[in-house]
């Protein structure tokens, strides 16, 4: 094999490795892309600070709350109310009821999704039970709080925002470090 070949093979192999890495890089890139564009209605997975936004009293937005335990999640999981009318900029607290009717402790993880997707960019969570895994002993129930506000910059064509939580059983992946401190405060 001559030197001319080796150089070219080297470069091409590097390209192969780079593209393999790029395949994996697409994962975080996609998340960034989603957070910028609101694809899939993904909301930020970190809390935003509760900046006192100017409340826009000129309009009201309907927030719809959907809470579903996944098929294999035996918890009962419900929002306290199904709908709420809010002014953009107002900070609200919404409680979700979780009940573990089984005999064993189960750890849940709520996965948020907002529709329409673009509205996700304007839905800010100051505190949310979905940021951490939630531990619930068998037979217990608890209230899980969500503190949020709608960005006053929400474009006017959106009048309803649907926030959905799907609750998964993640007992097998539980990291005891990050227990549900937030839920404790509001008590059981």
């Amino acid at each position, binding site marked *: 094999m001559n030197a001319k*070949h080796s150089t*070219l093979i080297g470069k091409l192999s590097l*390209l192969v490795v780079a*593209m393999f890495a790029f395949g994996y890089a697409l994962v975080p890139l996609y998340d960034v892309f989603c957070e910028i564009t*609101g694809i899939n209605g993904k909301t930020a*997975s970190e809390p935003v600070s509760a900046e006192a936004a100017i409340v826009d009293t000129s309009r009201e937005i309907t927030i719809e709350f959907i809470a579903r335990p996944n098929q294999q999640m035996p918890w009962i999981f419900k929002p306290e109310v199904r709908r709420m009318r809010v002014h953009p900029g107002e900070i609200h607290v919404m409680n979700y009821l979780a009940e573990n009717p089984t005999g064993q402790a189960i750890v849940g993880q709520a996965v948020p999704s907002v529709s329409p997707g673009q509205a996700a960019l304007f839905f800010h969570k100051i505190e949310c039970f979905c940021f951490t895994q939630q531990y619930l002993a068998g037979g217990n129930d608890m209230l899980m709080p969500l503190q949020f506000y709608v960005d006053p910059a929400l474009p006017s064509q959106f009048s309803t925002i649907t926030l959905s939580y799907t609750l998964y059983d993640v007992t097998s992946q539980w990291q005891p470090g990050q227990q549900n401190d937030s839920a404790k405060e509001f008590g059981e």
Partner: protein
Amino acid sequence: MSTVTTADHHDAHHDHKPTGIKRWLFTTNHKDIGSLYLLFALAMFFLGGAMAMVIRLELFQPGMQFVEPQFFNQMTTMHGLIMVFGAVMPAFTGLANWMIPMMIGAPDMALPRMNNWSFWILPFAFLILIISMFLPGGGPDFGWTFYAPLSTTYSNDSTALFVFAIHIMGISSIMGAINVIVTIVNMRAPGMTWMKLPLFVWTWLITAFLLIMVMPVLAGLVTMVLTDKYFATSFFDAAGGGDPVLFQHIFWFFGHPEVYIMILPAFGIISAIVPTFARKKLFGYASMVYATASIAILSFLVWAHHMFTTGMPVYATLFFMYTTMLIAVPTGVKVFNWVATMWRGAMTFEVPMMFALAFIVLFTIGGLSGVMLAIAPVDFQYHDTYFVVAHFHYVLVSGAVFSLVAAAYYWLPKWTGHMYDEKLGQLHFWCSVISVNLLFFPMHFVGLAGMPRRIPDYALQFADFNAFISVGGFLFGLSQLIFVWVLVKCIRGGEKAPAKPWEGAEGLEWEVPSPAPYHTFDTPPQVK
């Protein structure tokens, strides 16, 4: 385009190859490896075709008659995988092996030993894939697109074998692609400048780059599927913070360039055959090269048009709709160039030309339905119906496969030293072209009428069309047996072929005798 001044005719002296099985196992000769690839592809074409026959048999009538739904899904999955990775891609690689060194005046591929490896791991990949079907629970049944979480949480253990098989296929393709690039870049004969390269070489060079860019992404993707299923990662599992839609983005980032991998070399073949039989130089050589390159580049910007129904924001939908529509421009240029090449030529209609002409017509139909599919708001109605099945079979069967068949007829005299049986070839052509339309044209209607793809049973209003389609399918399958007959006959004997059997043919491959000696261009020819 190019002429040879010092043709090399002393190959026969050192034509010492081992005999028997060892010749094929250890061969580093590009012609032997090319033949192996082509024969393997042909075998896989019939295996994948047999699976298509099972699909058509089950769909002949409404109701479940012959197979279980799960087996039906295995058939659609394996049919797709085998045809894409086992038939079309290896067939093009086989042609590349045979023809590229001869077309550029090189003695062999640049990396002959790697060449041997890249072929011989391929049968094992398919062996693994096929064995997985006989394990308890059956083989992969999640479609060739293996969308997560159907292929992760909800699949059976054959997935591990599937992933392993895809890895091997990917490695084989990547090695083949590197070999093609190094050969073309470094081993062109003196005077064979870039803009003198035959278009088949050009299209393959661009294809090879596509392969190198996307096969590693596919490898990464199947690895993610594997770790999601067995090692508790959650790339695609919402419960762990993943996203199943991400799977589709990565898959189609690979998948869309992949479909061009299967069609660009076909463009090269048609660009060789049409001028030959029109006895006129290819119209717009330079624009053909640029069109190929722009199709390749655009192919990285259109992937999400496979995903309009996943719920994308409007502006993303619009972006992917516009870029997809844009692909029609360079593709159109190609079709116009071919027609302009024919215009005021002096055409004859031997079998390669017939298949090439059928390619142009049927590929254009597939291209036009592609434009329809690009229009996002109507794609909501077309998506995942038989309309899509019709579209991609028009571009892949009457496109890629027809170009491969045309190439086989075109170069058979060079490969075997015999002319194929023209009458049989014409019979093969007419049977194929009629049955392929009986098979795929009604799929447009049944898709528009609302039949989803990948279903083993269907509502009664689709019954008449499906019976018709199935008959077309069986006829198309039978027609390909004529091809085997032609091949066997041509390999075993027939009229002696001259070095240049086609009056209008140009290119270095026609400067060497037929059959091409085991070693060609040991001394590089001088291209003027």
